[in-house]
């Protein structure tokens, strides 16, 4: 199957085929907004995103959808309603900047209401680096329309020509008469509404005054003082604490459970529902003690371990071992055929899954950490056979996700416990639960066959990805008739799903390592070899920028010090990284320096962007060097931070990001693709020092 057709679906393995409905009543919403100006947008963008989310409309006409609203009240306070959520990627700030820019309103007059399913229009979720390229322009379009409406209303009041009026800093002014009205004064007492269709001309990035600047995180002070309420911090009156008794392995069935000891504990309620066993208590500690006293016997079917993973994976994903480019390969002067592997890795967000559920008069309200509030809402509607208007999901800015919080298990569990208890219940997954019962970035095997002429011209290319996914499997290099394929493994042993960058990390690791191997085979410098085979000007630019800043080629590798380079493009972001590694005694690897160039069109917030790209590089180091989920017989055997090593201060010595701001190009998302170039750059650096080619991630196991 061609990769492009598969891509959208395969990127979201964990999003199963559910029908989602948009049920918020706009008239109701309009009633709730007191006087003022309300702009909503009906555009193709929301529709496109609905399709990307894996929603299926079963042949019905696609509904027109409103993607966001902007409201301006009588005091000039601007409220933006969007289904996108803030998980550390800083869109609460960057989206507000975009609105402030087009509205010509002060940045601090803008409040973002995000991810509350009773207040915001339906949204597929916050993933796929879609917020900046999709929601950004939608909000800008609405803000620009709001500005036009305000100018027109002021012009009418003053009997002036709207074209002669100026909107600036939250006011409309008539330069001819010096008359001036704040936005709130213009809207006072009236209800102005407009639904926008189409794509008006937005302010070019070269003229941005608020967007494009390093505006600090809007509510930063709440975070350094501990005041911000994360999902796990939500408190309700009379709240109880829950705990779920977990099966002893995946795909387990409950044989028996003795809950009598737990039931005897003061203030403890045991909740049983089929194979679900949970407890609630007045405090977390008691709930944990009670859960431990439950003696449950489970039957766990035999399952493979990570030692057998790759052999099973190749079989399961239907490897036929046949090259599809045999003819092109036969004519190549130098041939390469190699296999690359990546392990299962965990997202390990520092805030585990958490939910607070409350039932009031048949209505269920859940505060939870998720990248898909409407998806979780649907889960709750289905789990409890409710109608959509009976369920509200709120998503307070949470302790990160990295693609790992698309699902709603914790919300459903908390709601189940709260329903039985008749009181609000908080459930926070333990670290072990988060490591075990969430889902993982898929392991994968990548096979590359390639041919090159002795002068360094690429002549044949074939790249197969088994299981980890199709993202980034295509090659950006000049090559006639490349073959790139993704092979799905339906019986994967672990739940697998989205992750920052998806399979682009694995596929870039394979491709950029193979490119290095080819460069070495024809005796060319790895950068020169890439540039010789690369037409894409944006990708060339990041390669050259990173290399210049790093001082590529200025020093020769030694047995203890190596240099590597790699790059690529995905989701509209272009990146190239240079790595310096030090090989210590007993082959200990230290990544001493990383320099990465990044370009994703016009920069909306350089500080936030730099932070994202740097964070992606740091996270990348974990997968490169030591992150790996170990499992056997349906259990994760390293479900603790003591056993599952993630990057720490000592691993991240010199990390530099160089941003290229292309104000002439639309802004792309940047939360993900910064992760893709680090693995091959580090691997290539290790090779340049040691002559040893590492084709499997993670590359180093920690010595204890």
């Amino acid at each position, binding site marked *: 199957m061609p990769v492009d057709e598969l891509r959208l679906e395969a990127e979201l393995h964990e999003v199963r085929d559910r029908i989602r409905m948009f049920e918020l009543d706009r008239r109701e919403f309009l009633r709730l907004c007191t006087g003022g100006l309300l702009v909503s947008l009906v555009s193709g963008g929301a529709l496109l995103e609905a399709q990307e989310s894996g929603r299926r409309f079963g042949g019905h006409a696609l509904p027109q959808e409103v993607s966001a609203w902007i409201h301006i009240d009588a005091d000039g306070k601007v409220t933006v309603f969007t289904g996108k959520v803030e998980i550390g990627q800083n869109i609460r700030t960057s989206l507000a900047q975009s609105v402030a820019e087009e509205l010509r309103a002060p940045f601090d007059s803008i409040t973002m209401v995000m991810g509350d399913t009773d207040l915001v229009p339906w949204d597929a979720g916050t993933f796929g680096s879609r917020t900046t390229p999709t929601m950004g322009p939608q909000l800008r379009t609405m803000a620009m329309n709001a500005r036009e409406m305000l100018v027109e209303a002021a012009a009418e009041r003053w009997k002036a020509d709207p074209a002669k009026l100026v909107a600036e800093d939250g006011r409309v002014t008539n330069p001819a008469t010096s008359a001036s009205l704040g936005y709130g004064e213009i809207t006072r007492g009236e209800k102005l509404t407009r639904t926008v269709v189409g794509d008006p001309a937005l302010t070019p990035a070269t003229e941005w005054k608020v967007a494009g600047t390093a505006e600090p995180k809007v509510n930063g002070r709440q975070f350094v003082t501990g005041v911000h309420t994360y999902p796990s911090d939500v408190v309700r009156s009379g709240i109880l604490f829950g705990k779920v008794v977990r099966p002893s392995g995946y795909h387990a069935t409950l044989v028996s459970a003795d809950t009598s000891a737990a039931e005897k504990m003061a203030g403890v309620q045991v909740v049983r529902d089929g194979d679900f066993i949970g407890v609630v208590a007045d405090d*977390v500690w008691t709930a944990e003690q009670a859960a431990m006293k439950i003696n449950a016997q489970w039957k766990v079917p035999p399952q493979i371990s990570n030692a057998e993973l790759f052999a099973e994976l190749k079989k399961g994903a239907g490897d036929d071992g046949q090259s599809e480019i045999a003819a092109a390969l036969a004519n190549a002067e130098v041939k390469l055929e190699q296999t690359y592997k990546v392990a299962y890795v965990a997202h390990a967000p520092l805030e585990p899954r958490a939910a607070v559920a409350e039932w009031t008069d048949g209505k269920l309200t859940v505060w939870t950490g998720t990248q898909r509030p409407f998806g979780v809402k649907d889960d709750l509607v289905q789990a409890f056979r409710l109608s959509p208007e009976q369920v509200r999901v709120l998503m307070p800015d949470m302790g990160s996700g990295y693609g790992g919080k698309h699902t709603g298990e914790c919300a459903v569990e908390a709601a189940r416990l709260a329903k039985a208890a008749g009181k609000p219940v908080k459930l926070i997954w333990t670290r072990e639960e988060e490591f075990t019962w969430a889902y993982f970035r898929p392991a994968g095997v990548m096979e590359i066959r390639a041919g090159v002429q002795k002068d360094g011209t690429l002549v044949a290319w074939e790249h197969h990805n088994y299981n980890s996914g199709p993202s980034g499997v295509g090659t950006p290099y000049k090559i006639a008739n490349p073959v790139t394929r993704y092979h799905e493994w339906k019986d994967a042993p672990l739940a697998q799903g989205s992750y920052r960058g998806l399979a682009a990390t694995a596929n870039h690791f394979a491709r950029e390592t193979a490119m290095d191997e080819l460069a070495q085979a024809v005796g060319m410098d790895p950068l020169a070899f890439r540039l010789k085979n690369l037409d894409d000007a944006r990708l060339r630019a990041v390669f050259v920028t990173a290399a210049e800043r790093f001082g590529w080629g200025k020093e020769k590798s030694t047995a203890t010090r190596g240099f590597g380079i790699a790059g690529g493009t995905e989701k509209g972001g272009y990146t190239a990284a240079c790595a310096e590694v030090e090989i210590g005694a007993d082959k200990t690897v230290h990544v001493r320096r990383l320099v990465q160039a990044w370009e994703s069109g016009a920069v909306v917030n350089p500080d936030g962007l730099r932070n994202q790209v740097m*964070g992606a590089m740091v996270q990348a180091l974990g997968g490169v060097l030591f992150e790996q989920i170990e499992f056997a017989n349906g259990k994760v055997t390293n479900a603790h931070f003591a056993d599952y090593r993630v990057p720490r201060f000592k691993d991240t010595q010199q990390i530099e990001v160089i941003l290229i701001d292309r104000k002439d190009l639309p802004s792309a998302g940047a939360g993900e693709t910064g992760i893709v170039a680090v693995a091959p750059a580090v691997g290539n650096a290790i090779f340049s020092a040691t002559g040893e080619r590492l084709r499997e991630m993670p590359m180093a196991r920690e010595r204890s």
Partner: protein
Amino acid sequence: MAELKLNVNGRVRQVQAAQDEPLLWVLRNKLGLTGTKYGCGEGQCGACTVLLDGRPTRSCLTPAVAVAGAKITTIEGLEQNGRLSPVQEAFLEEGAFQCAYCTSGMVLAATALLAEKPHPSEGEIVEAMNGNMCRCGTYPRIVAAVRRASLSVEKKEAAHARG
């Protein structure tokens, strides 16, 4: 359940806790101080860091009954009369967070470090902070923030010396 008196952020608070109940849950669920975070419950991530008589301590592994005599400082206790501490200021100025779930623990670990060693080298900062995890990967910014806080303390000392 034992009746405890805990000295938290300069106030004596009366609370009931089970024998082995971690300070973390008492702070968060019984005293309403949710700025202290659960990250792993195993002392590996540092999100639950509080100061006990100034020393950085993992509240997830510390029974509340064991600290009844200590001065406990949580993230909520650093701001004084509406003024942020130098470390809090520095984290804001450097933008040293993304999701910021680790920030409480980071700020307290850094506060303890600077109290003991007002002008740490970069190596000393890394060494002292290495037990605190930031999965978003903002480590270089956190190091910069600690250095900035250290310099701001230095400036204040200098201003003080000049009278």
